[in-house]
């Protein structure tokens, strides 16, 4: 399906936002029947590039050609009409509408402006089946579904728009490995049908599996375009971050003595029906990972520990003493010293319209004030220290948190909790949608915190992260601990097999083949 004229071409595209050059003289060729991966750190210009392609923002200069003819898109609808369909990183589903309503949102079937609900239902079911979401009920409300299901709906929706160029912006970042495999099968089929795919992801192994061509962006410029497989991972990452790429994960120390009293000891924790009889312990200096497919109770487990859930049974011991944590306020109190870094930084982690300083000092205000008066000097010192420690890139502490890039927002969430010097740190998939450079800093920070004596529980959908960061990994399946892996037993194969609950199948079966079937 390769042709000489690219299906879609961008020439000399530039875009500025205020004083920031988001894109400078960028070129890109997208060919039918091929997957073109776009790589780059957050802030490299990838998002701007696809926003221009899909008609969300207009370029300052440069031109776009579709089938060799110049085109411009005044709004997203025009781009969709031309066959350029984008699945955005910020999900664009409407929470109060049903799955079927959402799938046909841009172009519902019907006549005279009235929607034919039966035809809509058929369309939605077909699209869901094509996208591997047969288990999703078309009448369910989107707000009631977890992120991974929503992502499948996004893909189903894109398919109903008969795309010629399909753009996936971090489309798998909310998905667990099994879902990713299903999505990949769909994408490969679309590629065989002659659709051009533009794929943006921070997960290197996904790009290796899927891409035919790759283009690397850095600081708004195109650095290189090459055929997939012709460059090593290290070369690629160096191009992306513009400096030498050393080890991603810091080395793990020997770990604390097994006899030390655990800081956090969980016994027979239940929250029917989502959590069943969960027991584990974390010592000071230890990083315990939570693995498994998305939605197997990991999030609930963290919320349960943090006092958000009602009706929990079982025992939680802090420093060997039984405690009852009734609210996040109790969890963060000094006696327990717990912090939860949430998954959705936009709704649970930050108040985006408030300043960087206010966001940082919120969790610590009681320490920073005398009575009801906030000590501005102490606040400033504490905030500056955190910004320095985590290397947060911001135009001062008075700008709104929402103006920071995704990676820096996430650092801000972490910094906010570190200001309290927590002893127990719970993290809920903290590196989702964060670029390689920031991830690396984050892993080092995590290890430093552990070395300084923190007990850490890390839930991640990225298996590399669990392998690289954790001393122990609990694999959850349907609300129970499937198995606890330690040290050298934490391998990708073991994690995938346990996550899929196929540990008793014969030894050499390829997990991917099993999932794709």
């Amino acid at each position: 399906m390769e042709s000489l004229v690219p299906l879609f071409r961008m020439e000399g595209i530039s875009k500025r936002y205020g004083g920031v050059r988001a894109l400078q003289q960028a070129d890109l060729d997208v060919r039918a029947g091929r997957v073109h991966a776009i790589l780059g750190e957050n802030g490299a210009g990838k998002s701007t590039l696809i926003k221009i392609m899909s008609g969300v923002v207009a370029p300052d200069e440069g031109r776009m050609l579709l089938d060799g003819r110049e085109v411009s898109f005044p709004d997203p609808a025009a781009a969709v009409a031309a066959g350029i369909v984008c699945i955005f990183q910020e999900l664009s589903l409407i929470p109060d509408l049903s799955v079927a309503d959402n799938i046909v949102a841009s172009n519902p079937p019907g006549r005279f402006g009235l929607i034919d609900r039966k035809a809509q239902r058929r369309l939605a079911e077909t699209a869901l089946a094509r996208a591997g979401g047969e288990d999703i009920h078309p009448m369910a409300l989107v707000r009631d579904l977890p992120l991974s299901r929503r992502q499948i709906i996004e893909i189903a929706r894109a398919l109903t728009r008969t795309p010629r160029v399909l753009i996936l912006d971090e489309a798998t970042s909310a998905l667990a490995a099994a879902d990713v495999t299903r999505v990949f099968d769909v994408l490969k089929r679309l590629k065989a049908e002659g659709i051009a795919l533009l794929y943006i992801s921070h997960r290197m192994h996904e790009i290796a599996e899927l891409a035919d061509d790759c283009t690397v962006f850095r600081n708004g410029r195109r650095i290189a375009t090459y055929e997939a497989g012709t460059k090593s991972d290290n070369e690629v990452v160096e191009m992306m971050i513009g400096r030498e790429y050393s080890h991603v994960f810091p080395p793990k120390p020997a770990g604390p003595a097994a006899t030390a009293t655990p800081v956090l000891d969980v016994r027979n924790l239940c929250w029917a029906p989502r959590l069943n009889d969960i027991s584990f312990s974390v010592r000071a200096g230890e990083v315990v990972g939570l693995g498994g497919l998305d939605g197997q109770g990991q999030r609930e487990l963290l919320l349960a520990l943090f006092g958000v859930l009602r009706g929990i049974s079982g025992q939680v011991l802090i420093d060997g003493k039984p405690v009852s944590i009734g609210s996040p306020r109790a969890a963060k109190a000094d006696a327990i010293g717990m912090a939860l870094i949430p998954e959705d930084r936009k709704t649970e982690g930050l108040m985006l319209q408030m300043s960087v300083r206010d966001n940082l000092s919120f969790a610590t205000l009681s320490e920073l004030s005398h009575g009801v008066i906030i000590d501005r000097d102490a606040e400033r010192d504490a905030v500056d220290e955190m910004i320095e420690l985590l290397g947060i890139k911001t135009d001062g502490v008075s700008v709104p948190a929402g103006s920071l890039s995704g990676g820096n927002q996430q650092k801000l969430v972490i910094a906010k909790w570190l200001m309290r010097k927590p002893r127990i740190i719970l993290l809920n998939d903290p590196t989702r949608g964060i670029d390689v450079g920031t991830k690396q800093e984050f892993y080092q920070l995590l290890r430093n915190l552990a070395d300084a004596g923190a007990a850490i529980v890390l839930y991640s959908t990225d298996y590399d992260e669990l392998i690289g960061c954790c001393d122990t990994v609990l694999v959850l399946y349907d609300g129970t601990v499937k198995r606890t892996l330690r040290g050298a037993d934490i391998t990708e194969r073991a994690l995938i097999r346990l996550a899929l609950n196929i540990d008793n199948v014969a030894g050499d079966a390829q997990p991917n083949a099993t999932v794709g079937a």
Partner: protein
Amino acid sequence: MTDWRFHLAQQRGTLTALGIFIAMFVFYVANHPAGFTANVVQTVANKGVLLALVAMAQTLVVLTSGIDLSVGMIFILCNCVASYVVSGSAVAATLGIAGVIALGALCGAINAMIVIFGRLQPIVTTIATGAVYFGIALWIRPFPGSSPEFNSDIADALTGKIFDVVPTSLVVLLGVVVLVWLPFQGSVIGRAVYAVGSSEQAAYMSGMPVRRAKFAAYVLGGMLAASGGLFLTFFTYSGEASLANGNTYTLYSIAAVVLGGVSLFGGRGSAIGAIFGALAFRAIGDLLFVFDVEPLWQPLFQGLVLLLAVSIGSARLFQVRNRLELFT
């Protein structure tokens, strides 16, 4: 099939409102000295329909996650204009009715233009336009009254009873639901109204007609408020620029919408729920007359019952086990 569960979940707010209305109505009729007669029903219907129409108007704007504080003033303005133009021959009066509805659409369109293109918050916009609409009403009708040729035949026909049993106003209301609301809800624009209220950004990104949806919501809202104004004229044979009345209808329409299970955050609910909410709210107010309590107690009593009724809607919060859900 589990479809019915989803249908039920979608209609929960409307059904709750229906339940509250039935409870209130039964209680009212059971204690009414005259009992369940056509005349009692007609009185309840005629009062209820006014608020029901205004509440439907409010629903449309609330669905877009806005709020319309001018709705009562459009209602009053149309009442005053109708007292002039619904006059003369049947043809002339019918044209007058069409003109009043068009005036309501114009008022809604002005609100919409300011909200959409001026990017002002609906609450601020409609406080200002509401004052303007009331000002015009006061200007054209400084004292209560009506045109000497006021066509009371049309008024009587629309406020009477069909076959001496069914109140005509209820039939008109049903007609509005079947011919206006249901098609609107099932249309592309109607769905976009829900989408805009649920998440305007996502609706825009989904390529939905965001501006047209908002425009349609305000304009249709204006037309429904105008219909309410017309009915007020039919009942009273006159127009009156009453500030108290305008404010009352605005506030009651919000109460009716909330009782009717429409989310003030937008994107959820139905105008049918708001109708039941309006009828229930009226029934609550009338209970006092049945019990022959002094009218002074009415606001207090009505407020308490409203508080109780909306609390039923939050009873589900006691079942929430994940506290994060309390905030969504």
